[in-house]
């Protein structure tokens, strides 16, 4: 192993932070389960999402400097980012709307798959299906931020298989040009799969994804993304560097894919993968920070809440056919607004 692996076991975070983190992880998990059920019941054509990435994505969302415009963080995410959005304060009901592609889906007006967020007021750039294009766009928002000064950074995230796309390389190169380094936090959530294709055999034998950062002179870390304490601490460290130095940093986080790739591959629970939520709950219970019963009660109540919400969402109108013609062209500039 060429990388210094971080040993997360040692760091303990304040209890209230852990409790908050746990709650968000539960909400994230329950939301995804509701979405999968909706798909199973025919209330949505396709599901894709982030079960198994909560321990990483929730801390990420909590650490975002949230706002609109260059003073705040820009997020270029992919389709497993529900944990991040929930931690930022997104309403889970809106995800149900996108799942059911209703007219009120705020992210795409019933046009796009679930998990394809777009929140301009929080600098969340539209998530799009083509893998890895976000890495080509990230240097653009980061350049604007570098110019502006301050502490706003660009966060860009994608999967392991996707790093084979050219855009990952573009992200690395454009962020690290001598004298023009950019404040980009590059994140690879490595679940060891691209749909049905295993990591092994698609990447070099003796190096790992994070090593790419080294070839561009940027600091890198390989972290256990199944431990939210590790994730929180490592992300804090990385963000602090990027915010201060205005230079890029690459994090490779090892995560799980608990429901397979998407509904296209069945979305069944994968027992062989580490369940970060179960693990975290055990740990917190052992430390006396939460109780099993408390956790279960929270889960049950949130499940009930989302079930009720889904009933309302299912009854919402579908977008009118004529709306295909809406928003083909903007009539004024929105992105300059604050």
């Amino acid at each position, binding site marked *: 192993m060429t990388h210094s692996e971080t040993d997360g076991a040692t760091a303990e975070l304040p209890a209230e932070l852990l409790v908050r983190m746990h709650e968000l992880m539960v909400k994230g998990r329950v939301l995804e389960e509701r979405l999968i059920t909706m798909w199973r019941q025919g209330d949505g054509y396709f599901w894709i999402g982030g079960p198994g990435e909560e321990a990483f994505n929730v801390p990420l969302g909590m650490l975002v400097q949230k706002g609109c415009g260059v003073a705040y963080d820009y997020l270029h995410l992919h389709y497993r980012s529900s944990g991040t959005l929930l931690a930022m304060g997104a309403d889970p009901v809106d995800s149900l709307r996108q799942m059911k592609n209703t007219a009120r889906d705020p992210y*795409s007006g019933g*046009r796009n798959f679930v998990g394809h967020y777009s929140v301009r007021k929080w600098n969340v750039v539209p998530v799009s299906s083509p893998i890895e294009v976000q890495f080509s766009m990230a240097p653009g928002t980061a350049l604007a931020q570098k110019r502006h000064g301050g502490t706003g950074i660009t966060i860009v995230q994608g999967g392991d298989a996707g790093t084979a796309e050219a855009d990952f390389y573009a992200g690395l190169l454009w962020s690290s040009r001598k004298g023009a380094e950019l404040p980009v936090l590059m994140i690879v959530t490595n679940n060891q799969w691209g749909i*049905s294709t295993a990591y092994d*055999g698609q990447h070099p034998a003796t190096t790992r994804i994070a090593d790419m950062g080294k070839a561009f002179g940027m600091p890198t870390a390989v972290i256990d993304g199944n431990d939210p304490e590790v994730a929180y601490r490592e992300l804090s460290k990385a963000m602090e560097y990027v915010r201060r130095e205005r230079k890029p940093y690459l994090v490779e986080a090892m995560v799980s894919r608990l429901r397979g790739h998407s509904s296209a591959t069945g979305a069944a629970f994968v027992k062989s993968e580490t369940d970060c939520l179960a693990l975290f709950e055990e740990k917190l219970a052992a430390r006396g920070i939460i109780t099993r019963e408390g956790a279960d009660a929270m889960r049950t109540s949130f499940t009930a809440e989302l079930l009720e919400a889904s009933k309302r969402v299912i009854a919402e109108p579908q977008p009118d*056919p004529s709306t*295909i013609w809406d928003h083909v062209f903007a009539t004024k500039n929105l992105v300059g607004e604050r």
Partner: protein
Amino acid sequence: MTTIAQAIRLALHVGEERHGVTDIFGEDVGAPLGGVFTCTQGLKTAWNSPLDERGIVGTAIGLALAGQKPVAEIQFSDYAYNTIDLLKLAGAMHWSSAGDWNCPLVVMTPTGAGIRGSLYHSHSFDATATHLPGWRVVIPSNPRDAYGLMLSAIREPNPVLFMIPKALMRYRGEEGEDIPGAPDQKTLDEMINKPVTGDMSQWAARWPETPDLFIPFGEARTVREGRDVTVVTYSRHVVIAREACAELAREGVDVELIDLRSLAPYDWAAIAKSVKKTHRVVFVNEELDVTNFGEHLVRRVVDELFYELYAPPRLVAGAMVPGVGLSDNLERASVPQKDDLVRAIRETAKHQP
């Protein structure tokens, strides 16, 4: 009865066994999945590539130049738009070297809407494909054509783009549209479909004997003869148009339906012959409405058959908007539906000399 996905699988198998196919590759093309639409299950030369469409096309070109016979897959045609330069390069290889090299690769890719695939699993690729010099471009609408066109693609010395209508992957075709001598449905399914449950790591297909069937490029198929209006289409709109024809027949409008199958080259003789007979023509496809291959066909009709026409030639195509929306309402409003065809044909039929 074979599905289109099975027909492709069978053709690729025959390609491996008898016609020199060396590499069938792309994202999730090899084991365990055998392609997101199962088109490549159980094939001995199938392998999983990195998630990199440019690398897929580039490597396919290299393999072809080295005398191999690659069939490369782009998982969805929606994801081919970062490779257009490479596709152009392959199409230019023979010409730019003044005949020194040729570049015999096959690129196959599922295309079109109809499966509620939202923005990025609904694109049509015909406009881009027919604007690529040096390429053969085909798109079958039934299992027999899928099989026979794939075998021709494999033997072709030039680059071939083989598009597969996503919405017809499991379509079994009508009478006469099956592979000659194919086993019955149940037998075939048991032989070559990988079961979806259980430990399948040792699974192997049992391949039936299927014939060498080469459907020549540039030969259209008249699906239905008619007297009043010619409809020229391809891909899943052949199936939709067939329904439209049946409906119109009940109104007394007799439609001649042509399945182009091959877009480059395309069968101009067949179109011209039919238009000279019916004097009215409607083209149908689901590509975006501006700079559309169907517009080329309209232009050619106007160029060569202007004084034969009793009605303006028409094109029914997809809405010129950035994507196909997920909601059924949106998808139906974005790509031509049966009713759109019926209306356009009916209206065209009304024009008198």
